[in-house]
């Protein structure tokens, strides 16, 4: 009987390792098995290396690595049935929670947010990842494994984006926009092309592609939902109307002042009014410049209809509400208080001429509403002045 020498053992072991078998136990099992075959079947005259090459193909169909892969496969998926059960339970739970959450939200009942978020998180962090793992096991073709996994990953991205959007968390738009873009324009065509040529899948593939394209496309159209153009035009028109009225009053006041300029109170009142009026004008120009990213000169030429980010609330929060400069909310409040104290000195009995700024909500709003409110204050300032000047003229 032939005895396999130590050098030959090293040779076999190295060859097994070189073929991609990494599990040590498996390496030693195969080594012993090969040595047994050689010792049983090889005659003294045979050449060891030639004989080894001859018996090696018995172990596999294409390469020795198959044994490692098959072992990994059996070890990894021993929890296959547990995974399927979790998949079922998490799927049903997330569907129920989402339904309950949506119902609560529709009727403005408490607990809506947490229920929807829980449903969405179970869906995107347990259900979809398990689907990826199971598809990897169940699908026979490598392309199918990869294509379907990418689809589920994008699904995770979009559903996380929807949860973030519902909860007003940051990066919601980023997740939704890019998740949907890649899903509709990348994944669906790849899914379609990779399956359509297989006769047995043709019908299902077509139906699924159309469904995914339709749902994805509708979501895509939904997520950047703003006002219709008609509504936007009417908002801009009301803003212009208010500003035009204020400007007419400014012109009318200028004429009235000329006839009453001898009185020092009139000049004091006019000074207080025009300082606040111009200050607010500057703030409005500053806000438009900030949200549109243009210079102050360009912003001065723009009206609300030209402002594309009319729903912005982030930039104004940073640059106006919590800022400290000349064009901040704090500076505006100081100026309004100053105006009120000057006006109450001149006409102490007329409380309605004071600006009741506390009745306005200048915080936590969007830029179009903020601009409207600022114009309202301007309008009140010039109306007060007009009333005062008319009163003085009659005396």
């Amino acid at each position, binding site marked *: 009987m032939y005895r396999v020498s130590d050098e030959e*053992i090293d040779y076999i072991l190295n060859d097994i390792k070189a073929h991609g078998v990494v599990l040590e136990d498996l390496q*030693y099992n195969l*080594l012993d098995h090969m*040595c047994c075959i050689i010792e049983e079947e090889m005659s003294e005259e045979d050449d060891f290396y030639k004989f080894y090459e001859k018996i090696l193909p018995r172990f596999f169909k294409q390469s020795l690595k198959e044994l490692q892969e*098959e*072992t990994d496969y059996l070890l990894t998926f*021993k929890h296959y049935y547990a995974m399927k059960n979790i998949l079922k339970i998490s799927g049903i739970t997330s569907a129920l929670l989402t339904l309950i959450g949506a119902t609560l939200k529709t009727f403005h009942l408490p607990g809506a947010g947490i229920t929807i978020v829980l449903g969405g998180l179970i869906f995107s962090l347990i259900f979809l990842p398990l689907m990826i793992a199971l598809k990897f096991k169940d699908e026979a073709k490598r392309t199918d494994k990869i294509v379907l996994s990418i689809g589920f990953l994008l699904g995770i991205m979009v559903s996380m984006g929807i949860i973030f959007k519902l909860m007003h968390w940051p990066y919601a738009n980023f997740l939704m926009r890019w998740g949907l873009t890649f899903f509709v324009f990348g994944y669906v065509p790849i899914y379609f092309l990779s399956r359509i040529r297989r006769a047995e899948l043709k019908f299902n593939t077509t139906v699924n592609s159309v469904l995914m394209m339709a749902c994805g496309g509708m979501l895509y159209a939904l997520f950047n939902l703003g006002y219709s153009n008609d509504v936007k035009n009417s908002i801009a028109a009301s803003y212009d109307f208010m500003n035009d009225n204020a400007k007419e009053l400014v012109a009318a006041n200028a004429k009235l002042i000329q006839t009453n300029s001898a009185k020092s109170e009139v000049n004091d009142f006019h000074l207080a009014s025009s300082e606040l009026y111009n200050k607010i004008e500057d703030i409005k120009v500053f806000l438009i410049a900030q949200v549109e990213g243009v210079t102050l000169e360009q912003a001065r030429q723009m009206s609300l209809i030209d402002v594309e980010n009319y729903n912005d609330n982030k930039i104004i929060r940073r640059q106006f509400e919590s800022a400290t400069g000349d064009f901040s909310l704090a500076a505006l409040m100081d100026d309004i208080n100053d105006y009120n104290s000057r006006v109450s000195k001149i006409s102490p009995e007329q409380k309605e001429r004071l600006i009741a700024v506390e009745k306005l909500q200048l915080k936590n709003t969007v830029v179009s509403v903020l601009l409207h409110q600022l114009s309202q204050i301007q309008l009140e300032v010039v109306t007060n002045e007009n009333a005062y000047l008319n009163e003085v003229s009659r005396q």
Partner: protein
Amino acid sequence: MHIHKTLMYICPMYSSELIKGTLKTIVLNLLKEKGKMYGYEITQKVKELTDGKIQITEGALYPTLHSLEQNGELETEKEYIGKRVRKYYKLTKQGRVTAAERINEFADFMNTMKFLLDLEPKMG
């Protein structure tokens, strides 16, 4: 349904579909009879017992042995032969229970198949 590519036998006599899924039963039963065995010994024993009608391939045997070991059905003993290490497999307590279950299940299956395919005359 997934059919993994290497889980096949070289079996001159039977189609691989026919005996697919019985490898675990064969291994467990053999170990129940013989106590402890190593991989090569198992392949030779099956070949000998079936006159070469069923030949287990290494590609199917070792992954199955590793998976049975991981699941706690088998335990191992190592024997050092020079630079070689030989792994002997034997049934654990749980493995003995599984072996009995598998064998009963298969016996029952064979009876059902006999009846289904009308291979032996029915009584009465």
